């Protein structure tokens, strides 16, 4: 593990910076709090310690976030509505459902584009346009429209997750399915291979490195989509709902704890896909 030292160095630097920023950002507020309480005889170290342990700091200190994470993940029952495990599992379900259908749609679109050349010109601008609409504006519309058809619960959120995840998968898979070199394609032509043989025996295996790369981006995008959808429609819970509730009540520690949980979830998803990818590609003798 050659990466341990550089990684931990960066991590340590981040912690130092974070603590520095926390003191700098929270001190003015803490000074006011001291003043209101009539406390004037405090040293600067008193101020720093207090600024790092406020109830509603502008920027919570790492140990506060860690404490909140411990409290809400380990010390709280997983089925409690305060538990981050409970909310993370809601987000994870929406993400996975959305990611699954987003991948199917994205791959299907890529296959269509590769096989029917004119589709690239006619579809690609729309696909790109679909991603330029800010999702935060679109998400409530999707929820409202689906609600009109009595589709509620997890589905609208999975739809929004799918909406964000299909795009990188389509772009990556189009590139992947087109990655065979001219010689490999000519070879198939000399055998008079059919389009589907070309797809399954050449294009699909060649696209695998691109497939796993796109899946990683798609999974992370799906999680972002699910969280945004939860902010839009927060009554069913989820990490996005926790973010929203935290910002209503100025619970910055809660927000940061939810953020870290979301990041960890995303990291775990991407890591799992990366692992499966590495093992598969190695087995198929791709240079990895």
């Amino acid at each position: 593990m050659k990466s341990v030292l550089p990684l931990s160095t960066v991590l340590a630097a981040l912690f130092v910076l974070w603590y520095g920023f926390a003191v700098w950002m929270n001190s003015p507020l803490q000074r006011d709090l001291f003043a209101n309480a009539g406390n004037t005889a405090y040293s600067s170290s008193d101020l720093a310690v207090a600024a790092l342990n406020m109830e509603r700091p502008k920027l919570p200190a790492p140990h506060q976030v860690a404490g909140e994470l411990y409290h809400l993940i380990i010390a709280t029952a997983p089925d409690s509505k305060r538990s981050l495990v409970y909310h993370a599992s809601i987000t994870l379900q929406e993400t996975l459902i959305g990611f699954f259908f987003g991948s199917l749609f994205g791959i299907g679109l890529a296959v269509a584009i590769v096989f029917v050349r004119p589709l690239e010109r006619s579809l690609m601008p729309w696909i790109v346009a679909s991603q330029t609409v800010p999702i935060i504006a679109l998400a409530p519309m999707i929820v409202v429209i689906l609600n009109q058809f009595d589709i509620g619960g997890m589905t609208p959120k999975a739809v929004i997750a799918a909406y964000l995840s299909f795009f990188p998968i389509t772009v990556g898979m189009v590139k992947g399915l087109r990655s065979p070199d001219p010689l490999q394609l000519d070879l198939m032509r000399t055998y008079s291979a059919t389009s589907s043989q070309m797809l399954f025996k050449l294009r699909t295996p060649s696209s695998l490195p691109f497939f796993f790369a796109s899946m990683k981006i798609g999974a992370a995008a799906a999680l972002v989509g699910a969280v945004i959808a939860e902010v839009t429609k927060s009554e069913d819970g989820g990490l996005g709902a926790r973010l929203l509730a935290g910002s209503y009540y100025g619970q910055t520690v809660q927000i940061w704890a939810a953020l870290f949980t979301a990041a960890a979830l995303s990291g775990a998803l991407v890591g799992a896909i990366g692992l499966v990818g590495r093992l598969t590609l190695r087995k198929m003798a791709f240079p990895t």
Partner: protein
Amino acid sequence: MPEAAKSDDFVIDVTDLSLTFETSDGPVKALSGVDLKIARGEFVSFIGPSGCGKTTLLRTVADLEQPSSGSIKVNGMTPSEARLNRAYGYVFQAPALYPWRTVASNIALPLEIMGVPKAERATRVARGLDLVNLSGFGNKYPWQLSGGMQQRASIARALSFDPDLLLMDEPFGALDEIVRDMLNEQLLRLWEKTGKTALFVTHSIPEAVFLSTRIVVMSPRPGRIHDVIECKFPRDRTLDIRETPAFLEVANRVRHGLREGHSYDV
């Protein structure tokens, strides 16, 4: 030899073939007025400088390029019919083995595509590996093989479905001299044993003279046939033949032909 052969015995029959590529710099005449008949069982080499259209001619025979004018018949069919009939095996400059397949499964690829049953595939792959002296390497991946072995695997792949016609585009161009000599001898034995018709593109005069029954010397701008040289060495010749005066005489004629074809733009 072509004079003696009956007309329906021509595997390749090219008449007044021209091919012009439209490029952004204007049209490029890759082939112009090419006439050529090749009888069954011949080994014909195409030699000439870069841009003389030898690869293009081979690709046109294989239906990988479309002629602009003239006619071309492969086994009496159009190239596209011949391709759909799987009339030929093509060996490219690079082995073009699929890296995710083992050597055996690369050789089985055309058989899979042509719907050959699994058991039959296995026996044919074993025979193919044996033919190119790669028995025992079937389970290896391409990257575990040397360049020469990879190219031998690609020859086995081209032969796996037993086409009568073998089209080879500088198959040994990227290999060193010693490996190339060895493969030339093996290829000659293979041709002798199977009686296939071979079209072979090369840059090397000794290679062409050693392997061929006829050598087609081509010249560039526009790509055309400059000369066709008969080369009647016994089928069971070995590499030693390259020291003989007869061999050197044919090699000299090829060299002269190449120089003449080239002279106008030197």
